[in-house]
């Protein structure tokens, strides 16, 4: 076995023993009080791993120091001259070991550590959520509201399914509900709650998809058909509808063709003419009906349809929804396909400007960021300050969507005075594409899926906000910066090097210090150089303080081995601290240009220490 392999085994032994020690230490320490039982073990394990990652460089250097001090024993009595091939061979082996260990460290530090920190934070958040759900459920039970309590407890049980406290409270809820409804079995009620109006609430993220699927099944294909349609296809569909005397659809597709056609397209005029003809038929429609019910339905459809044509999708949605529910409840005939179709058209249009309140039920269980605060300097010199209590990112139908909880936004003028300030319990955010750039579009107006009048609008706390912005607010920033702002709110240590590179140039725009990120970038880049330099210096010490050739390793020396990683850790922390001081001075002296001289200086140090190693000789 070569000396390099032997030293590698020494380093590996350091890693294994230290990993075990870190895990034991992490499990011995108390977990944060917010955590609930299912997350405690994993939280502690992650803490142990994070601790181990922190100590990896010290273990590597200690391993090199001890390993090479023992390996050099075989050359203790040899005459070794300066620049000898023997030392160059050792240096090569040490380089390989250092590169392997450094690669492992950086994968752990830049990839695994930020991920684990996020998981830890998420576990703490879920613990806090659980306690809050249970506390609210208890309050609801005391207020004799078992329905609300049950919804909260279902959410709490999603976090901790085996919670004795939550299950006990749930049983009490079901008992109270059964009592209230005159002895119906608790199990029946339980399934009622799970599948009923609160089903979505209890299922969190799944509730969004489920809620969307509550719409008529036949409506979906129509909506899909309309996507990517050309003007000619729309005209063809209009003709087909006319032949079937389906003038609503004939008008709808003719108008669609008119909107899709370019101004120079001769079909544009044709589309408008066809739309007019269809509308004439729609206008005289009631004359053809003799039954009162038919007339009323036709008028409702016309009212809804006119709302669609006027862009009032909210009104159209409720008109068609009421008609849909009426026809469904009547059970005499099937549901009018026009109603189904235009309900879907209205719903699709509505969701471009509003979102349904029930989409946000228990969405906080899936929040990946909390307490996000940033400012945004707008191009008109005003400043938006944004506070978001919780953010849930998801992807639906290939599109990024985020739900924001407890959003507060203030717009400040150049003089520091408040232009307006609003607060809204929930907002839905999309990337809004314009001129090749996507910006965050906040939909602030939530509506009830089942009835008109259940709107949730932002509360205006101060000033006058334009009506349009009270419903939809477009943030004056690139959408991709939002991820960086969220990461910056978690702290510098939670950001990857790539994130910091991207953010350092725009950090000031969002109220974060650009110099802080510059310093951290240089710190992170300097880190491998520092470890490499200390490693080679450890090699020098290993050679200088090597074991004598005829000296055998004594048992009591093993007792002193733990001192090596500790002293090495102190040495590394000292070097890191001094490097931080130098980097602050460099960034202060040459803001924005400190990286190159720092890296050049470290490279020179590295070359010098390498030369110093193979410039050694026998004592």
């Amino acid at each position: 076995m070569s000396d390099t392999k032997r030293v590698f085994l020494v380093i590996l032994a350091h890693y294994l023993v230290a990993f075990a020690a870190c895990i034991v230490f992490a499990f011995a320490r108390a977990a944060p009080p917010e955590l609930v039982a299912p997350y405690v073990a994993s939280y502690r394990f992650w803490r142990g791993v994070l601790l181990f990652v922190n100590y990896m460089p010290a273990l590597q250097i200690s391993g090199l120091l001890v390993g090479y001090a023992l390996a050099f024993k075989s050359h203790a009595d040899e005459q070794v001259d300066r620049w000898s091939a023997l030392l160059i061979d050792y240096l090569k082996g040490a380089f390989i070991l250092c590169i392997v260990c450094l690669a492992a460290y950086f994968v752990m530090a830049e990839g695994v550590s930020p991920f684990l920190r996020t998981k830890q934070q998420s576990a703490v958040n879920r613990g806090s959520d659980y306690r809050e759900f249970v506390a609210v459920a208890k309050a609801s039970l005391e207020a004799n509201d078992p329905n609300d309590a049950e919804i909260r407890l279902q959410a709490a049980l999603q976090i901790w399914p085996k919670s004795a406290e939550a299950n006990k409270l749930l049983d009490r809820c079901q008992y109270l509900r059964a009592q209230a409804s005159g002895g119906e079995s608790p199990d029946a009620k339980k399934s009622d709650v799970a599948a009923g109006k609160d089903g979505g609430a209890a299922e969190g993220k799944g509730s969004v998809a489920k809620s969307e699927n509550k719409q008529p099944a036949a409506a979906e294909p129509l909506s899909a058909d309309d996507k990517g349609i050309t003007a000619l296809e729309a005209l063809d569909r209009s003709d087909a509808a006319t032949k079937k005397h389906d003038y609503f659809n004939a008008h709808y597709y003719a108008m669609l063709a008119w909107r899709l056609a370019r101004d120079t397209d001769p079909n544009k005029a044709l589309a408008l003419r066809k739309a007019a003809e269809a509308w004439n038929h729609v206008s005289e429609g009631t004359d053809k009906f003799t039954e009162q019910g038919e007339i009323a339905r036709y008028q409702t459809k016309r009212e809804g349809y006119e709302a669609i044509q006027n862009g009032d999708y909210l009104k159209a949605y409720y008109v068609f929804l009421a008609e849909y529910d009426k026809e469904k409840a009547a059970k005499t005939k099937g549901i009018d396909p026009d109603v189904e179709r235009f309900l879907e058209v209205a719903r699709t249009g509505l969701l471009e400007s509003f979102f349904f309140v029930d989409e946000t039920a228990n969405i906080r269980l899936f929040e990946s960021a909390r307490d996000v605060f940033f400012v945004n300097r707008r191009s008109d010199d005003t400043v938006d300050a944004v506070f978001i209590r919780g953010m849930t990112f998801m992807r639906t139908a290939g599109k990024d969507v985020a739900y924001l909880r407890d959003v507060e936004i203030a717009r400040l003028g150049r003089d520091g005075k408040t232009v307006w300030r609003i607060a809204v319990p929930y907002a839905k955010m999309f990337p809004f594409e314009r001129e090749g750039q996507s910006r965050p579009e906040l939909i602030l107006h939530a509506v009830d899926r089942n009835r008109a009048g259940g709107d949730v609008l932002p509360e205006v706390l101060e000033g006058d906000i334009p009506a349009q912005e009270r419903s939809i607010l477009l943030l004056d920033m690139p959408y991709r910066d939002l991820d960086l702002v969220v990461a910056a709110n978690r702290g510098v240590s939670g950001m990857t090097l790539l994130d910091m590179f991207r953010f350092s140039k725009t950090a000031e725009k969002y109220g974060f210090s650009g110099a802080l990120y510059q310093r951290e970038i240089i710190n992170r880049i300097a880190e491998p150089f520092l470890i490499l330099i200390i490693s080679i210096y450890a090699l020098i010490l290993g050679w200088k303080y090597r074991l004598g050739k005829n000296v055998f390793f004594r048992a009591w020396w093993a007792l002193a081995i733990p001192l090596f990683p500790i002293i090495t850790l102190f040495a590394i922390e000292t070097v890191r601290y001094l490097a931080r001081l130098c980097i602050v001075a460099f960034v202060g002296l040459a803001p924005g240009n400190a990286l190159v001289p720092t890296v050049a200086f470290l490279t020179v140090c590295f070359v010098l220490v390498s030369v110093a190693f193979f410039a050694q000789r026998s004592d």
Partner: protein
Amino acid sequence: MKNTVMIPLVFVGNLLLWTILLSAFSVPTSYASLMALSAGHFSVFIAGFVSSALYLLPISCMLSCLYLFFYLMRHETMLFISLPLALVLVAASVAFLIPFSYRLSASSVASSFTQADSFASEPADGAGKLFSPGLIRDGDGGKRVFWLDDSGAGKRALGVIVADRATLPGSRAMSVYTSADYDSESRQLSAGGVLLLVPAGGKDPLVASRLETPGFLSHLARDANFLLESFHSAFEKGTVRYFATVGSFFALVCCLFFICHASAWRLLNALLVFTLFRFMLMGYPYTTGGFAYDEARRFLPGSVPQGLVSPVMVTAVAAISLIVCLAVFIIRKIRRGRVGDFQ
């Protein structure tokens, strides 16, 4: 023979190296000096460098002494020459070099740097200006504070936003103030009697938080400062007190020579020397007060002045260490000669 001749050079070389390293890195540890250096005021750095070099000279001497012992451990020398030579170098440092540094630091040479030095200390001594606007600042209890601009020479912040993360879900977390007043004495930023942020001025936490000294280093600096202050105080109290205090501690340091031969593994010896040196620094304050001091005071005759109790204690520890180490050293030397497993 060559190795023996090298001893004074090794000591002086190490002394220079440690003096430069310790001084160069001790200057930026002060926030004010670092900020002055970042602003390109190099005179502040030079002034700090000179005063630190003089102040830290006893520590540099001790470290040079240790490295000289390592040199003796690693190289074959004529022990009956090299050891006395090393002791003479250490004694010369105690007798001449350190008193000279004290006299120099009190002389006009050092005071010529006072002007530059005062520049460095000024921002730290004053209450400090309001932090620069346009950045989010972390406050106590999960508060985050941002202000758009300042006016009145940093006495007032304009467009202040406070996001309080500690508020309960559903309640308002953000407060907006058109302006807030900054009190440079208490470093408080407040609006209408409501305290928004403290400290809102002085050392910028965005820089200072990254410069926090690691715990073990701040403890080391605290113990070293205690020792240096004791040395300086003894120097001011007279020659006898000085030689008793400084000489006894250096005698204790010299005992570490024997630790360099504690085992056949040089690396382990070096490690033990550093560990014990750290314990010496850590233990020294206990010889000037506390339980051990009280016990020693009771044991010693009343004629021993109070100021000499610590030197007597240190000398006693050095003497015991010397006897034990010498015994072990001689035994090992005899065994080494017989068994031949010692290089």
